[in-house]
C-alpha cells in the first residue's frame, strides 16, 4: 500500500496528475470510501485493502471534466468499465492516468456475518493470510478469505488489466465458480418456480436506486426512471409490476454494455442478486451472437448495435422450452 501512496505522491508532485482518485480509510477496516486526494498530506488517509471493492471508473466521468489529469487506481475488473465508458465517450482517456492495481479478491463485510465486529485482521494482505481474524464484541472468530469474498470475485474475469498506464502489485485470478451456473439453474426452473424466485427477491427492492447509481453503465445524465419525458418516472415500487419494470429495463439498457463488474449486487441493501439480470443477458448474447465481453476493448460494436443476417429468431425463446 505504501508503494501506491509513494507513487501517487510523486505523480502529484511532478505535476503529471492534478489529483488522485482512490479509497480513503474510515473508522474501521471495512469502512472504505472512494475519495479524491488533492495533496500529499491528504494521501495519508489513502488505503488499499480487501474492502476496496468500489469500482472507481464511474467517478472518472466527473473527473474527466476537471482541469488536468486524474490518477485513478483501477483493479483488473474495473478496467473493463473504464474502457466501456471510453467507448461511449463518457470518460476521457487523456484525462486519466491509470495505475492498474493488483487485486486478489475483494471482501463483503456482510459475508463475515458476525454481530458486533470491531476489527478484521488479514483483509489488507490476502496473500499472507488465507484466514481472516475477526474481533467482535462477542468474542473472536476466524473466517476464510474466500467465503467472505464478493460474489463477483468467485467468477473473476482474470488478472489482466484491459487499460493502464502502469501496473502495481500482484493480482490473482480468484474464480472458483461457473459464471453462468446460477443463471442456468434458474433457466432450468419451471415458469412458476422462476416467477416465485424473482418475486421473492424483487419484493425486497426498496427502489433506492443504489444499483443504478453505482453502475458504470448506468451513466445517463438523466435516467428514464427520473424523467418525465418517457412517462416512466417512478420513485417507488407501488406494485410488483414496477419492481420488475425497473429491473428489466435497467438490465436491458445496459445489455451488451454491462461488463459484469458486480457493483449492483455489491451495493444492494436488500442483497438482491441483481447480477442475475445482467448475466442472463450476457449469457444469451454469448450463446446467440457469439462471445462478447463489454469493455475488453474500446472500438468493437456492441451486440445490440450490431446484427448478423442469419441471427436467430425471437421464437428461439419458445423453442428452447
Amino acid at each position, binding site marked *: 500500500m505504501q508503494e501506491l501512496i509513494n507513487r501517487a505522491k510523486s505523480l502529484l508532485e511532478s505535476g503529471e496528475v492534478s489529483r488522485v482518485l482512490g479509497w480513503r480509510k474510515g473508522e474501521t477496516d471495512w469502512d472504505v470510501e472512494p475519495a479524491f486526494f488533492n495533496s500529499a498530506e491528504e494521501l495519508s488517509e489513502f488505503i488499499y485493502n480487501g474492502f476496496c471493492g468500489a469500482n472507481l471508473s464511474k467517478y472518472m466521468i466527473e473527473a474527466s471534466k476537471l482541469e488536468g489529469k486524474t490518477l485513478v487506481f483501477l483493479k483488473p475488473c474495473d478496467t473493463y468499465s473504464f474502457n466501456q465508458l471510453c*467507448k*461511449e465517450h*463518457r470518460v476521457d482517456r487523456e484525462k486519466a492516468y491509470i495505475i492498474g492495481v493488483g487485486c486478489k479478491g475483494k471482501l463483503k463485510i456482510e459475508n463475515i456475518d458476525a454481530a458486533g465486529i470491531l476489527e478484521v485482521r488479514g483483509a489488507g494482505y490476502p496473500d499472507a493470510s488465507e484466514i481472516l481474524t475477526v474481533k467482535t464484541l462477542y468474542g473472536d472468530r476466524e473466517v476464510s478469505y474466500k467465503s467472505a469474498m464478493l460474489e463477483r470475485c468467485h467468477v473473476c474475469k482474470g488478472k489482466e488489466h484491459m487499460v493502464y498506464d502502469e501496473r502495481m502489485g500482484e493480482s490473482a485470478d480468484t474464480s472458483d465458480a461457473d459464471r453462468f451456473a446460477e443463471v442456468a439453474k434458474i433457466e432450468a426452473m419451471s415458469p412458476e418456480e422462476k416467477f416465485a424466485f424473482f418475486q421473492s427477491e424483487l419484493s425486497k427492492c426498496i427502489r433506492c436506486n443504489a444499483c443504478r447509481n453505482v453502475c458504470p453503465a448506468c451513466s445517463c445524465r*438523466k435516467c428514464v426512471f427520473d424523467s418525465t*419525458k*418517457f*412517462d416512466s418516472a417512478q420513485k417507488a415500487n407501488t406494485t410488483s409490476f414496477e419492481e420488475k419494470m425497473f429491473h428489466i429495463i435497467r438490465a436491458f*439498457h445496459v445489455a451488451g454494455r454491462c461488463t459484469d463488474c458486480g457493483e449492483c449486487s455489491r451495493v444492494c441493501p436488500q442483497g438482491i442478486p441483481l447480477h442475475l439480470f445482467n448475466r442472463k443477458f450476457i449469457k444469451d448474447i454469448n450463446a446467440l451472437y457469439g462471445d462478447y465481453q463489454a469493455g475488453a476493448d474500446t472500438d468493437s460494436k456492441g451486440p445490440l*448495435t450490431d446484427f448478423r443476417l442469419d441471427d436467430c429468431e425471437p421464437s428461439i425463446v419458445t423453442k428452447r422450452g
Partner: protein
Amino acid sequence: MQKIGVFVCHCGSNIAATVDVKKVVEMALLEQGVVHAEDYPYMCSEAGQSRIAAAIAEKGLTGIVVCSCSPRMHEATFRKAAERAGLNPYMVEIANIREHCSWIHKDMAEATEKATILMRAAVAKVHLNAPLQAGESMVTKRALVIGGGIAGIQTAIDIADAGYKVDIVEKTPSIGGRMSQLDKTFPTLDCSACILTPKMVEAAAHENITIHTYSEVEKVSGFVGNFTVDIRKKARYVDIAKCTGCGVCQEKCPSKKIPNEFNRGLNNRSAIYTPFAQAIPNVPVIDTTACIKFKTGKCGVCEKVCQAGAINYKQQDEIITENYGAIVVATGFDTIKLDQYGEYAYGQSKDVITSLELERVMNAAGPTKGHLERLSDGKAPKEIVFIQCVGSRCSDDRGKPYCSKICCMYTAKHAMLIRDKYPDTNVTVFYIDVRTPGKNFDEFYRRAVEDYGVNYIKGQVGKVIPQPDGSLLVQGVDLLDQKQILKKADMVVLATAIEPNTDVRKIATMLTASIDTNNFLTEAHPKLRPVESPTAGVFLSGVCQGPKDIPETVAQAGAAAVKVIGLLAKDKLKTNPCTAQSDELLCNGCSQCANVCPYGAITYETKLINDHGIREDRRVAVVNSALCQGCGACTVTCPSGAMDLKGFSNRQILAEVDAICR
C-alpha cells in the same frame, strides 16, 4: 389542451354495415378533449372534406381524428384537407376502422367496440401531436443509370433528351446488354443489332450522357435528390483516349483460348478483347487472368503492335465520386444455371443448348457464323426438340416459381426461323402452356404452328439421354393424347428461366432498396407505382423489376425516365418531417444511436449546454433531418430517451398503448 374533432366515415356500407358509426361518434364525444364528432357516408369525398374544414373553422379544432380506411389509403387526403383549412397536416391521425375492423369482423357489437378503441387510441395520440413542418432539400440535377442494356440506354436517352445530365455505369466493357446477344426479335423478326446499335450510338454521342463502361457502383450514400456515389472504373489497360479500335492487338494476342462470354462460351476470344464488333466504346480491355504479360511478365505483344500507343499495363482502377439526384436501376438478367437439371443432359452433350446459346448459333457473328449446326460435330440437325419452362414455374427449389414470360415467344421465333431457313428440319416443342398475350403475339405463335408446321406437344420432358450414335433420345409425355413419347433428336434447346443479375442484391443493399424473394427489386406499389422503388429517388427499369420482353422493357425504361425527369425538374424537395430529434439536455453523447443509423444521419458535436443552471461543454447527438428517414432505430438504442421520433414519439405510442389496454 387540444380541441379534437372526430370524423367517422361510413365508407358507404363498407364500414357502416359492421360498425355502428353513430355509437362511435357518441363514444368519441365522451373522450377528453373531443369537442366535435360526426359521421358521414364518404369522408374522403369533396363534401366530407369540406365538413372537416367547416368543423375546423367553427370549433377551432387543433387536432383531427378520422375513423376511416387505412392511413395508407387516405392519410394524405385528410392531411391536405386539414392543411387547406388552416390546420397543420400532422395534426391529423387516422383510426383504421375499415381494413383493421369492419372488413374482418362480422359481429356489429364487437366491431363497434373495437372501432371505439381504435378511435380512442388515435385521440390519445393526437393529444400529443405537435405541428410539424416539412423541411426542404436541394436536388442535384443529374441522374445515374446502373446498367447499360436496352433498359438503361433508353432511360438515359429519355432523361438526356429532357435536358438533364445522365451517367450510365455498365460493368462489362461495352453497353448493349442482353439485347446485343440476340439475333432476331419477336414478333417482327427484325434484327436485334439493327435496332439496338443505333440506340447505343445515340447514347454514346449524346451531349448529356456520360458512359462509364467496365465500371461498377462501389458505394452509395445520401438520399433522394442528393445521392453521392462512388464508381469504380476498372482498369482496362487500354487508354480510351488513344485507342482507335483498329483491332490489331486482338488479332496478334497470343492468348486466344479464353471462353467468349458474349458467345456464351461457345467459342474463344483473346486475352485483350472487345466483347463484340459493335461494342461501345470500341476499345478493348485486357483480361488480366488470361494475359501472358500479367501472368508471367513476358509478352507485351499488344503494346508493340499498337500504333496508337494506347496499351498501358500500369493502369489502375480509379474511383470517381459523383453526385446525383436520382438513381435508376437497370441491371437486367441472366439465365439460371442448369447444374441441378441433370435430366436434360445439359453439360453432358454439346447438342443440348440454351435458347440464348441458340441465339448466338443463329447469329451471323456467332460461333458458327450463323449456320445452324450441331456443336458436337458440325452437322446440320434434322430433328430439333425445344423444351419449355426449364426452371420456370417450378415448384421445387431447383428453379423459379415465376413464369419467365419471354420463353414462349422466343421459342416460337426460333422454331419459325429454323423452319423457314431449313425446311427439312423438324421442330418439336414440349410446353406446359403457351402464353402469348401481347400485340400480335398469338398470331405469331399460330403462324409457327399453322404456316411453319412446328410440332407443339403439351407435356413435359422427363429425360434427355445422349445416344452412342451422337443423337439424343428425348423421353416425354403427351398430356393431350395421354401417352409416353420417345423421340430421337439431333439437338435439344432449353428455354431456360431468367433471373435477376446476381449483382442486384449488392446494389439493392447499397441503395437500401428492397428486393423480393426472387431477387427482383420491389416496386413502391405493384400497380400504381411500378417503376419506383420504395426508397425515394431510386427507380426501376427493365427486367431487374420482373421478367419482361423488349417492348415492355423499353416502355418501362421510358416511364422510369419520366419519373426521374419529374424529380429533377424540381429545385427543392420537401422532406419527411417525421424525423428523429435529440434532446440535448438528456443526451449522453454515447454514440450508440449513430451506430444503428442506416443513413449516417447522426453526428456529434461538443457544445455548451445550460442544464438547469449547470453550464458545461457536452458531446451531444445532432440529427441531420435531411438524411434521417424516420425509422426510429436510434430511439430504442438511446437509454435515456433523449432521442425521440417526431410523429411517432415515445409518449404518442405509449398513449396509444394505454388507450388500447384500458
